[in-house]
């Protein structure tokens, strides 16, 4: 064990990386969740790696634009990209003309996830998940449930919930989180599966019925988890950093060390929690395991719902 460790550290010091600035490609707009995580990490990373971290934004096609570019980028470790799961799993499956595949990349780290929770508008008749399910059973197809995008984390969370509970919800596709937020605050939709960040921000103006984290979130201490209610249901969007597959092992390891050192710092974790994220500390191996598990789950849902019909 020690021998392996010492080889690892020996490699790190002998490695001539990084020699110059590292580019961090953000697949979404500034101010979004990926950006917040990136900016929070930036100062620590720069200190750890000894070079500046340059954040570039390549939003478009829900992230597909950036990831297509990333899969073709030079695999020298100087270009890393943010990502979201399940986006990188689902997009190559559902979007035509997408120029990347999920296994074009190696995930260096998973930094945080935002559990997805179920919230209903303030004056909705149900006060708990149980009542919600009863109401939905009595009114099939009439309960409006909002989420962002088709074939996205929110959409699949809704589908999974429907499968687990046997109810029929009416999924309403919005184009952005803030729109879902506005709609539910204004009572235009009945319910929403949405990110924990929204739940934390608006917790006094909506009823948060449950959240998909394995344990209760400190920011939402009075909200039960789906697990507590007996549902093996952990919907979430996980985010982290990945590189093109062909980046050499030693460089991957060096990057992994830098990120892990950053995200295991207590002050970083606190910052993320305050904003409503659940910080994680996952390296290459763990992240791959997570990715595989998610892929399996999503594939099952796709089969169950027969979602991969050819679009007309």
């Amino acid at each position: 064990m020690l021998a392996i460790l010492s080889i690892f550290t020996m490699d790190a010091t002998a490695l001539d990386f990084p020699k110059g600035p590292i580019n961090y490609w953000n697949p979404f707009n500034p101010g979004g969740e990926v950006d917040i995580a990136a900016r929070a990490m930036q100062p620590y990373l720069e200190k750890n790696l000894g070079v500046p971290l340059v954040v570039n934004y390549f939003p478009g096609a829900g992230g597909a634009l950036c990831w297509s570019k990333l899969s073709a980028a030079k695999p020298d470790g100087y270009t890393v990209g943010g990502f979201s799961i399940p986006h990188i799993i689902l997009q190559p499956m559902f979007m035509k003309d997408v120029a990347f595949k999920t296994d074009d990349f190696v995930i260096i780290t998973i930094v945080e996830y935002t559990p997805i929770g179920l919230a209903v508008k303030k004056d909705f008749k149900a006060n708990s998940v149980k009542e919600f399910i009863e109401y939905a059973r009595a009114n099939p197809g009439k309960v409006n449930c909002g989420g962002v995008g088709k074939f996205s984390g929110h959409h699949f969370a809704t589908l999974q919930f429907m499968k687990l509970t046997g109810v029929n919800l009416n999924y309403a596709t919005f184009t952005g989180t803030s729109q879902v937020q506005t709609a539910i605050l204004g009572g235009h939709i009945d319910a929403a599966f949405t990110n924990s960040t929204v739940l934390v921000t608006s917790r006094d103006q909506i009823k948060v019925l449950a959240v998909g984290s394995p344990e209760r979130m400190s920011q939402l201490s009075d909200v039960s988890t789906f697990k507590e209610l007996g549902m093996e249901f952990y919907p979430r969007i996980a985010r982290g950093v990945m590189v093109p597959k062909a980046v050499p092992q030693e460089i991957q390891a060096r990057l992994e060390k830098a990120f892990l050192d950053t995200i295991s710092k207590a002050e970083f974790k606190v910052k993320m929690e305050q904003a409503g994220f659940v910080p994680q500390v996952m390296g290459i191996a763990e992240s791959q395991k997570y990715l595989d598990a998610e892929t399996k789950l999503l594939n099952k849902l796709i089969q169950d719902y027969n979602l991969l019909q050819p679009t007309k």
Partner: protein
Amino acid sequence: MDLTNYILLGVQTLFTPTNILFCFIGVVMGTLVGVLPGLGPTAAIALLLPNTFHVSPVSAIIMLAGIYYGAMYGGSTTSILVNIPGEAASVITCLDGYKMAQQGRAGPALGIAAFGSFIAGTISVLGLMLVAPPLAKFALAFGPAEYFSLMLMGIVILIYLAAGSMLKALMMGIFGLLLGTIGMDAISGTQRLTFGILELCDGVGFIPAIMGLFGVAEVIANVEQAIRTDVITTKVKNLLPNLKDWKDSFWPIIRGSFLGFFIGVLPGPAPVISSFSSYAIEKKLSKTPEKFGTGMIQGVAGPESANNAATGGAFIPLFTLGIPANSVIAVLLGAFMIHGIQPGPMLISKYPQLFWGTVMSMYLGNAMLLILNLPLIGLWVQVLKVPYPILFPLILLFCLVGVFSLNFSQVEVALMIGFGVFGYLARKFQFEMAPLVLALVIGPMMENSLRLSLIISQGSPWIFIQHPISAAFIFITLVLLISPLVPWIGRRRKKLREKVEGEQI
């Protein structure tokens, strides 16, 4: 009263050397990116964001907010001088502002835009101070149904912008709507007309469209002519609006400010909607509506005030609910979170110095912008004096860089050139550009709202009437559609009467 205490708190927070400096940097950067077509406030904010980590959140927000409304100020400059809108909200300013510049009145146009923006900005900050929470509730009442009706009304208002044939303007508008459908459909996930080009997935960007239709096309149209010998000469004393200009602009500014502020509270393309709504209102209220499009100062004063007031209104959902009204404010929201500030309804009470400091900085920022921009007017007018053979390549260069720097995409530059060709031909065939661009901007939102409303109502179209606000908009839309026909009917009857009388005699 509590309010005075808060104002004092805000002033105290603001008047530190750091914060004043940051305010200044913000508005200067904002104006700069506003003037440079294509480069938007988002780019500037993203650029300066890392520099804000080492200072307090208040300073950061002050600077970032300054960039935002500074960009609005700057956007009108290029609209007036070279007929290139800085962003979608400045498209309307091109209509009369550029004509004024061509008549040698660039100074007054720029001046009234600056003053109008200042007054509007001040009014909107006042509004932000006084009525933020109740207005936020008002914003929440707007759901997909209300948005659809609002956008529909907006499209119909586009007809009123037409200086020429209404039919042709409407055709351009519909064409804009159709172009807006290109891209990935958000609701079903299907690709529409993207031909496998990934860049088109998000639709035809309005920046390439604006740069092409207004920038490139205008330059080409000018290049067609032989060397222009009509150099625009302006005497120094004509650099500012004269008394008549002020008289004409007073009410448009007031109306525009209030209109813009209220519309600005609604998340979405508020500055765009408020600017052309203001134009339509001024045109309707004017005693000489047919002169709009030839250089009426009301056509600059109203819209410019409206789009600046809308920026103030856009801060309300941010501070009261933690909801960003547009992508620029979303960056501010992210900045809050990076600095560890929890957005939401408790923001104002938990961080009063943040809110009031920012509010006070807006007053200061608006004043700074005015002071900055007025002497610059003289400078900008000099730009017009640069001989066109040298000026036009530079204009084209700005267009190219502006579009390219958005997404580093050659596809978008190609799109711009394509729009340039189209715009050039459209000019020759006497079709107007503004309806197309505006439809392109609000079309996608309108379509999404329509379909979302119908999903929510499970297919019932009555949702648009059942919601009172939506019903009101639909009603106004119908009135607007019918009213042009009324005088037409009146004229026919008059002609008929004259014919009958003529026969009798």
